[in-house]
């Protein structure tokens, strides 16, 4: 056995208790049957048009995110621990954002060097002193979690801006129930289908003061965006309008949408558009995707944006190392979830260490995402290492480095049969008048043998995630 933690098998090769039922079922299923179910899944996804666009390829290229039919199962107890940690972490992130955009106590206390925040290009001075409903900034957070061992979870990344992927969590479950209904008789899998209801409730709960029956819309960059399927899907599930920037107009300080019956006021905008594109009068003037005047209506409290403007400063990789300190500082609690030890290359000592150990480490751009612009030392050639070394030396503060984690793996159906592949987990945490989430998340799986990169833009796939209810199996 390898030294990676396998979600299904113990080190001695025995099946873990919560996978036992599944393993028994799998034993009796002929291989060609699994293959045909997988083909069926592909057809379903393609017909439903559950695709995403890949940047850098020919325009209009749409791909399916590969779906794996072997579920990722987590026992109730493990999930309960994770859930408590997630709740704590998101609470601290919101407290941090409130603080940063008001009194900046955490900077005054010397816990985070002020320049880390104030010169960060994700920090938005426009938000300084602005109050947002309930002091909530990141209403929808996707926290990326990996496992390295028994009960040993690490937060890899906090996605506090516009996290995506929740539609795959929901569609994966739907397809799984269609393909393998018999498995759902054997397992008490916690339902996730009510996510859109929770989301709508969350969005409504942060409407501007005095609005009793708020109109909520979802703002998308448009049909060519890589996550457009998800935008359309969520809007439809919540029964709200899916709008583009050109559908909205600011008049007399309020935001309206253009309807066939005239202008209708909008109170809450669930925006799936980065800060930079929201309002050409304030941010990028060349943005055709946003709404001129939106930010002034927002700052005046006439409309709520979710997530708030300026949340990027909380999930930036240069701030990430301080999240455990935030939890201590704002909540007075010990962090329940681990951070991955992180070297900040802006520090000379860290830089020297990283340059000497490049082949062992993972190096990431501070503002990067989606698996773009990163180096995985152990998987790189000499040339790649050298090239990256030059990039780092040209601008050290643009990078952080982390030890290569021994990501857990899980049996996955690949061309050669069922084989272990590495995976992570992104639960979605909703914060409005309270913190809520559905038990589960998006499990992403690296389909290449030994690959540690699970991002769909890098060829990763997804699995249905089963949180078991109660103590039924284990």
């Amino acid at each position, binding site marked *: 056995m390898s030294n990676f933690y396998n979600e299904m098998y113990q080190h001695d090769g025995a099946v873990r208790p919560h996978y036992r039922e599944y393993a028994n079922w799998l034993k009796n299923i002929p291989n060609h049957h699994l293959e045909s179910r997988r083909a069926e899944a592909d057809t379903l996804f393609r017909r*439903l048009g559950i695709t995403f666009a890949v940047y850098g390829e020919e325009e209009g290229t749409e791909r399916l995110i590969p779906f794996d039919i072997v579920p990722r199962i987590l026992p109730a107890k493990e999930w309960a621990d994770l859930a408590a940690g997630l709740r704590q972490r998101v609470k601290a992130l919101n407290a941090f954002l409130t603080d940063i955009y008001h009194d900046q106590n955490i900077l005054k206390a010397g816990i985070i060097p002020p320049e880390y925040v104030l010169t960060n290009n994700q920090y938005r001075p426009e938000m300084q002193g602005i109050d947002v409903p309930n002091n909530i900034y990141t209403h929808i957070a996707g926290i990326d979690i990996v496992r390295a061992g028994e009960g040993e979870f690490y937060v890899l990344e906090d996605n506090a801006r516009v996290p995506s992927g929740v539609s795959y969590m929901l569609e994966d479950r739907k397809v799984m129930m269609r393909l393998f209904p018999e498995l759902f008789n054997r397992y008490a899998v916690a339902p996730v289908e009510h996510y859109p209801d929770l989301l709508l409730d969350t969005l409504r709960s942060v409407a501007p003061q005095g609005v009793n029956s708020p109109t909520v819309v979802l703002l998308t960059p*448009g*049909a060519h965006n890589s996550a457009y399927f998800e935008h*359309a899907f969520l809007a439809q599930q919540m029964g709200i309008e*899916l709008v583009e920037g050109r559908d909205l107009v600011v008049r007399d300080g309020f935001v309206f949408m*253009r*309807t*066939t*019956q005239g*202008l209708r006021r909008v109170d809450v905008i669930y925006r799936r558009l980065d800060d930079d594109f929201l309002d050409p009068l304030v941010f990028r003037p060349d943005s055709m995707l946003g709404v001129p005047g939106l930010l002034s209506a927002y700052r005046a409290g006439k409309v709520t944006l979710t997530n708030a403007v300026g949340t990027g400063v909380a999930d930036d990789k240069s701030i990430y190392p301080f999240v455990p300190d935030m939890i201590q500082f704002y909540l007075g609690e010990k962090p329940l979830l681990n951070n991955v030890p992180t070297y900040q290359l802006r520090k000379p000592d860290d830089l020297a260490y990283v340059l000497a150990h490049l082949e062992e480490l993972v190096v990431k751009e501070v503002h990067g995402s989606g698996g773009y612009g990163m180096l995985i030392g152990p998987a790189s050639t000499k040339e790649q290492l050298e090239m990256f070394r030059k990039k780092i030396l040209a601008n050290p503060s643009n990078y952080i480095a982390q030890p290569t984690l021994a990501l857990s793996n899980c049996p996955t159906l690949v061309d050669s049969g069922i084989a272990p592949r590495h995976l992570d987990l992104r639960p979605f945490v909703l914060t409005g008048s309270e913190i809520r989430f559905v038990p589960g998340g998006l499990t992403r799986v690296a389909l290449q043998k030994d690959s540690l990169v699970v991002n769909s833009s890098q060829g990763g796939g997804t699995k249905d995630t089963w949180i078991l209810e109660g103590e039924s199996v284990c």
Partner: protein
Amino acid sequence: MLSRTADHLYWMARFIERAENTARMLDVNYRMTLLPQNDQQIQQIWRSTLLINGLHDTFSQRYDRVTPENVLKFMVFDKNNSASVYDCWRLARENAHAVRGSITSEMWETINTIWLELREQSFGKQDISEYLEWVKYRSHLVRGVTLGTMPQDEGFRFVRLGGFLERADNTARILDVKYHILLPDAKDVGGAADYYQWGALLRSLSGFEAYRHVYRDLITPIRVAELLMLKADMPRSLHYCMDQVYEGIQQLGSHHTWETERRAGELHAQLHFGSIDDIFQSIGLHEYLTLFLKKINALASRISNDFLLPSTTSSFVLE
């Protein structure tokens, strides 16, 4: 509903209808060329297809000769021809994609599946008649799924409005050009050429049986025109289409859109109370149809301005 959503639904329906009518028109050409006639006549028939759509120049930039094969390639499979069946479906699917949350999942899945199948097709892969028939039936399928699953709400009305406006336009164009070609020497009237050629036209617009049923007589050009223009119960006639368009605008409109409603009503009334003899004697069929097309286009742009892409200045605020 969002103006943009209405716009996408309206254009989705228009492009699906247009793809169908292009297939119908190519089908009638194909049938006609199976009749005994000389090369020049065959050329003229295929050239007419290009004239209907105002595509003659675009065509001759890319193809050296008007042959059945070239015109079929151009009008069905050519990705660079914005009027080809291929491109109509691409645009229909793109519009549907943009509002996939506002149509039923059955509609979306049907349209997306058709598009995926269509992308696999190419010239010569299968019998062309069969292919054109397939295109026509895909249109029937979408219409059926729409009727069977979509709530009869505002969105549904925009789908219908787009479809019937496009059909009125297409029927008028087909009739105009065919009439121009087919209008025979006076001495041929009532001859065998009429039967086959006008018969083919009627068949392409699903009107052959209706003609027999209504007139129980020889096929004559003037009656064919009457059937396709003035008969209220013939689903592809101008009159029927305008019935639907007028009704749709009445349902969708408000006092802000009165002028649009008035114009639709006027156009409808002319067909409702018109007589084919008057049309032929006082103004002439070609002139009448040219004017009709002009009015239909003016109406379409009024619909755009009123409902689909209103400028901010003309918009009014809902209480």
